[in-house]
């Protein structure tokens, strides 16, 4: 009985994980894949929102604004490195989503910035936010809260060995670009 129960649990767990990882929204010609927000340390007043936006239409569109009940302001930003200096800029006029193309918002590049959080964003939660596009209009999305970089508590609970940790770190960097 036990192995069967274990296998069943594993299968169910696998299902629920893949269900929560793959959520997609449609708005006219736009497909928005897996919106997620960075889990925050306590007191951190900002978080980043990430997703892939595909434009299946034959006209370019622009992500121009956003709003969320859990943040005072939502802005569209780009982060870049200039030598050893980190720079962050609001993208004036919005982020273009080219016709037939896709744009990925991810750590280290474009992101939606949630400013003035009403509380800590904890892994496993989800938060609704509305994004507005110049042509396609507005859509409410559920951002799943994820540990983009695993924080201390997770590292401890998983009990990584020394070398494992280094590897995990590198992998995380690769994934996150």
């Amino acid at each position, binding site marked *: 009985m036990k192995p069967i129960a274990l296998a069943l649990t594993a299968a169910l767990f696998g299902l629920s994980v893949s269900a929560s990882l793959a959520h997609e929204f449609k708005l006219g010609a736009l497909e928005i894949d897996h919106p997620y927000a960075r889990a925050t340390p306590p007191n951190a*007043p900002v978080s980043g929102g990430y997703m892939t936006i595909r434009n299946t239409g034959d006209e370019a569109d622009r992500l121009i604004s956003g709003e969320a009940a859990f943040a005072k302001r939502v802005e569209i930003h780009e982060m870049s490195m200039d030598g050893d200096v*980190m720079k962050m800029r*609001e993208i004036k006029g919005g982020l273009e989503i080219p016709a037939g193309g896709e744009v990925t918002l991810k750590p*280290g590049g474009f992101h939606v910035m949630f400013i003035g959080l009403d509380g800590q964003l904890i892994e496993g939660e989800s938060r609704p936010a509305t994004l507005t596009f110049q042509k396609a209009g507005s859509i409410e999305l559920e951002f799943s809260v994820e540990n983009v*970089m695993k924080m201390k508590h997770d590292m401890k609970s998983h009990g*990584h060995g020394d070398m494992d940790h280094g590897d995990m770190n590198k992998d995380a960097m690769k994934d996150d670009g």
Partner: protein
Amino acid sequence: MFAALLLLTIGLLGWQFAVQGTDRSLTASMKLGTDFNLIDHNGDPITEAAFDGQPTLVFFGFTRCPEVCPTTLYEMAGWLDTLGEAGNDLQAFFISVDPERDTPEIMKGYAEAFTERVTGITGDPDEIARVVAAWHVYAARIPTEDDDYTMDHTASVFLMDANGDFKGTIAYGENAETAVAKLRQLTGNS
């Protein structure tokens, strides 16, 4: 004789620059920093004496930083984890470039979410500005909407030996193995 000595000196500087290679303006073994009177994340006074006697990592950032600061603190926690006992002597500080908004309480919650090995430092903005300048760190306020602002800032981690001499930097996103190797060298446990 004098010319030979001069050549040797130039050669040595060139070697340091080539080996260092991480920052154009900084050379290994130079003195960085200044005296200061600031506040640590427990609300206690802290001075430059805190950096003495132990190999030290110094990182400048702010808690409204969505990317570089959480990533760097996370990685720092990972390096220290990987070093284990070999890194027991290492101490690490996270100095705010946004002291007007980063109170000691905010710094403490933020730093300790990643590791208890990193101590946040904040305090008087003019004093912070002096420290930032003395470390050759770039930090600039960039206005955003609603009279708000964000900060551009140097994202490298500075490595200082137990004598307070600058030994190099770890760049943002540098691979974990290289970073840990640099720390082993810094602690003399290579």
